């Protein structure tokens, strides 16, 4: 039985013959899904290297990928220390966004007055650009990491809150009635009905919030202009910019991009694990 097949009474006695052509086609698709993007990126990097070499572009304008790679190796320990700072900032802010968004979302979904009272604040915080709020936060909060954490959290928090509320409110009304009929307690309703119903919405928000928490962390650090050893990749980029160390700037950028890709892959994998067996958004369809 394939994940998308439909069981029917008539189809139970003997398994259908295996369609070898379809299996081969599916295998080819799986391989292509990896090979194509990797090949395209490799081609783009190769073209970049060639054009820089061919036109003799100075490294302080556009460095060749090979120079960026060697800079990455040479500056490795310093850059990795900064990367670890940004990773911690990103994941702490994402974790806080999840906790805050889900708890507040559940409160909003359970109580209209709470939602009506607090939702305007959430919207104001969301629509006000973080670069405008960050200087104030940096004034009021003396610990730099905490201040950056608040900035990144503010950016990542809203999608989780918004989608959690929509998800909790999108429960099938017949299923709600069924739970009423069987006299489910509020806790049973939350655990067995509302939470699973909201999961697809939450997972979609997590994918957005994952990227936003990284963006928030980087932007906040840019605004803070933090310097010193205990700082993130944004600080390395600012420093490199001041010193005209363009290859180092690119090396830090590569690390930020790789972190973004890693976050996207992790949130996508989490979504697949949680929803893969039952939700349309993660079910693979045969073509």
């Amino acid at each position: 039985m394939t994940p998308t097949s439909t069981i029917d009474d008539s189809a139970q006695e003997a398994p259908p013959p295996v369609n070898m052509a379809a299996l081969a086609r599916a295998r080819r698709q799986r391989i292509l899904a990896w090979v194509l993007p990797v090949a395209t990126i490799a081609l783009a990097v190769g073209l970049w290297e060639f054009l820089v070499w061919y036109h003799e572009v100075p490294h302080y304008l556009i460095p060749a990928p090979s120079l960026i790679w060697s800079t990455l190796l040479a500056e490795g320990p310093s850059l990795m220390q900064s990367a670890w700072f940004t990773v911690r900032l990103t994941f702490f802010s994402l974790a806080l966004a999840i906790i805050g968004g889900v708890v507040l979302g559940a409160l909003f979904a359970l109580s209209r007055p709470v939602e009506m009272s607090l939702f305007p604040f959430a919207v104001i915080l969301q629509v006000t650009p973080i670069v405008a709020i960050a200087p104030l936060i940096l004034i009021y909060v003396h610990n730099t990491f905490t201040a950056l954490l608040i900035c990144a959290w503010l950016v990542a928090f809203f999608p989780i809150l918004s989608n959690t509320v929509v998800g909790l409110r999108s429960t099938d009304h017949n299923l709600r009635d069924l739970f009423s009929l069987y006299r489910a307690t509020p806790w049973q309703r939350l655990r067995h009905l509302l939470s699973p119903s909201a999961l697809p919405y939450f997972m979609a928000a997590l994918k957005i919030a994952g990227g936003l928490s990284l963006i928030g962390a980087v932007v906040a650090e840019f605004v803070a202009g933090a310097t010193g050893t205990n700082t993130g990749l944004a600080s390395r980029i600012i420093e490199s910019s001041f010193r005209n160390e363009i290859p180092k700037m690119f090396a830090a950028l590569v690390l930020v991009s790789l972190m973004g890709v890693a976050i996207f892959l992790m949130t996508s994998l989490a979504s697949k694990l949680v929803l893969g067996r039952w939700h349309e958004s993660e079910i693979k369809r045969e073509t």
Partner: protein
Amino acid sequence: MTSRTSAETRPSKTGAPLIRMERVRKEFGRDIVAVSDMSLTIERGDFISFLGPSGCGKSTALRMIAGLLPITAGHIDIAPSQTDTEHDLGFVFQEPTLMPWATVFENVWLPLRLAGLSRTAASDRVRAALVEVGLSRFENAYPRELSGGMKMRVSIARGLVTRPRILLMDEPFAALDEMTRTKLNNDVIRLATEHDLTVIFVTHSVYEAVYLSNRIAVMAARPGRVVADLTVNAPWPRGEEYRVSPEFSAEAKRVSTILKGTLDDADIDH
């Protein structure tokens, strides 16, 4: 006015009133009267269909009996259970209404789970319910892997797993193809007989109502009300031979004629 036309043919367990609806009224907002002055007594062992056009308040009446909708006026009494049945009512919705994130087993387990029974404690009863609807081999399947008819059978198994006295069915087979519908009609008759169920079945199909029921409450719209309470003259339990018999055709024609007459009168009145 309600009128019963002939003696019952389905043997009742006691013949005692099980559900009594007295002058039940349901309003939505200020202007919409969904059900008006509905009075009906349903006896233990009855298989009664609420038959009528869309918007006549059939489903609203069913939901009020289930306690899913508050009553605006009047009252509904359900005789207290004399057994240790955990839940009096089973409900089968128009859609299968299954939890897509849960397996067939988990969906059927739900009413028992909400009553506090663990998976292990409930497993015998869940499996027994699945056997009764012919889905014992699919307990680990997810709803999306099942056909429409099979989903509906899971829904019926869930309705029966608490061993209720009363099964409420809200146009459960309306979206199914004719063959599946026929098959499920027979399943419902078998289950109602085996479990001594009192069934209230909402439908807009005269043929389905005649095939399944020993009583038909004909309802009219604007406002929703019972305009005839008919008894179906046919042996019980029924099978395919009844569906193709001249008696079935004659009974369906009789009910159709009464339905048309009562609805025409209702339209003139309102």
